[in-house]
């Protein structure tokens, strides 16, 4: 097992998610949608943290989340960032064994 908990892994994912949302906010017409969308997914992350935050994260889970973070850090186009504001949390939640 890795030395981290689900909370550690999700905190790292949420930090990267914040950067992604800031990129998506670059599309002015979608500013409020971007914020509503990120709020909705953060709420889901919070639910998982309450129930499973102190659980150990497996190596596979940590590596999956790091790989997903690496993927969104490659994104430069704000339109693609908005697509990933929905896709990234789903991948992270599946990786920790939670329903998106």
């Amino acid at each position, binding site marked *: 097992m890795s030395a981290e908990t689900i909370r550690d892994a999700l905190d790292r994912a949420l930090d990267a998610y914040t950067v992604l949302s800031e990129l998506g906010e670059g599309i002015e017409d979608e500013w409020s949608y971007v914020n509503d969308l990120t709020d909705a997914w953060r709420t889901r992350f919070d639910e998982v943290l309450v129930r499973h935050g102190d659980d150990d994260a*497996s190596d596979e889970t940590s590596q999956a989340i790091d*790989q997903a973070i690496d993927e969104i850090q490659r994104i430069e186009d704000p339109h693609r960032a908005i697509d990933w504001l929905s896709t990234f949390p789903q991948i992270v939640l599946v990786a920790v064994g939670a329903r998106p």
Partner: protein
Amino acid sequence: MRFQDAARDARAVVYAGIQADPAVARTASLLADATPVQRLLARAVMNGESIDPTGWRTMFPTLFGSSATGDAAELARSEAILEASLAVADRGDQVRSQVRGALIEEVTAQLLAKRVGADAVRRERRILFDGVPAEIHPYDVTVERAGAAEAYDCKWGARGINADVLHQLDDARTHARDEDERLSVALVVFDAQRSCDVRLDRQTAPHDGTTLFSLETLDALAGPGA
């Protein structure tokens, strides 16, 4: 109420070429039988930046890692979806976008065909009503059966949900009702229900009579409750 082929303008001709690409039908067939996580894999890869399969396998341990089911057929399908999705991702942005659109339409058509038979499922059709000007945009997929017609608009992502499409679907439903016809209308979105709900919550266009099929509920298209 009657159905009619859409006009074959230049855009339609180009798009028909994308729709007819054998890779689209093959990939759609994989996705029609896929699990929700396999569909998420396809969505991620086709939206992605990197085309290294190893990284994507790492990102989805429940499909490729020790937490996978261990079912050889499921693993083979996951690998086939990954390969097909990477082939889409490797194309230019414009073609990638067109292929993704064609894919979700074809997945919808294939799932509907399981329920109503392929002969009843049509693509790129207009729906005409007496005394009502025809809509410019055809419906992506229709089910044409007497007394139980259906019209579907397909979107790759929740962001594609907008007032125009919601009005078009709801108008068709109400015009059909005015003619004492039954027309079920629905959006098919290759994205999470949660993201679709956020998008729909922001819309003032009528959508109470429009069914939503999301990434998690696509299989319902093939079921009796669709």
